[in-house]
């Protein structure tokens, strides 16, 4: 042990970080979902997908930053466990895919007037990617308790 992680000195730190983590990803995924629902012709149909994305993208980025930074701190409390946890690894792959997809193909299609079919496909891929991150996160605990 080179140095003790100060985050492990109090049992309250982990749950508090988790609350920030959950609030952060709820804001990020929730605001992406507003745009995705619009691509599916649901919800805020008075605005174009581009207008909705313009109005929510900063909130989305803010939520994402809070979720990622609280996540890094959570990771630092027990890195070996996370690194060896297959659900965590899947979660990281999904996270990278979701973020890359969001700022490339998703952004492009949202800004364009693509066909309804393209809109729908992109919306479903986006929702599936973001929600798979949540599943990956929850399953870290079940894998950890020896059920994996």
């Amino acid at each position, binding site marked *: 042990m080179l140095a003790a992680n100060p985050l492990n000195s109090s049992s309250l730190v982990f*749950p508090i970080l988790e609350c920030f983590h959950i609030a952060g990803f709820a804001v990020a995924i929730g605001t992406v979902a507003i745009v995705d629902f619009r691509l599916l012709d*649901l919800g805020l149909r008075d605005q174009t997908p581009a207008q909705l994305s313009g109005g929510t993208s900063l909130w989305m980025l803010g939520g994402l930053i809070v979720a990622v930074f609280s996540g890094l701190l959570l990771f630092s409390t027990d890195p070996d466990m996370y690194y060896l946890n297959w659900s965590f690894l899947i979660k990281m792959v999904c996270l990278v895919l979701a973020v890359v997809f969001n700022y490339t193909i998703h952004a492009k299609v949202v800004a364009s007037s693509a066909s309804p079919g393209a809109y729908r496909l992109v919306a479903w891929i986006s929702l599936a990617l973001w929600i798979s991150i949540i599943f990956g996160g929850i399953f870290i605990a079940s894998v950890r308790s020896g059920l994996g």
Partner: protein
Amino acid sequence: MILPVLQWVQNVGVFSDLRSSAYVYSVILALHLSAISLFAGMILVTDLRLLGWTLNRYPIAGVVDRLRVLKRIGFILAASCGFLLFCSKAEEYFYNPFFRMKLILFALVALHALVFRGSVYNRALELDLAPRVPTRAKVAAWLSLAIWIGILIAGRAIGYVPGRSGMHYL
């Protein structure tokens, strides 16, 4: 009187199966959080619009009305998953102080709706016509954000109270 009912509920086949299957339990929990995320986005956008922090160029009425149905669906999804989780360990949840806190906060959600539905949410057109968003609408938005954040914290804390069959989930 309530305790025998809770014990009976958690011993119904489906719910005791749910309790003993870590994978099915985790799937329901993940669905619960997914529904919460989708629901949270809609709550957030509605409240932020009332506060004037997003989609300012567009009428409040459009945002409130267009999200109403989806918001209800999201809430029903999240609540249904939550109800299943509750039924699998009904007795433990009953004794869990954070679960009780969460229920009280849900009562506040109902109270919030009772107070502000008539004066804010069902009068969105009026809010748009006013020169600036009235204070009562901003109070409604702040209270909504505060209550939902409280629910999130209480919900997470439930898992940290050691129950008779050990911790729920870390």
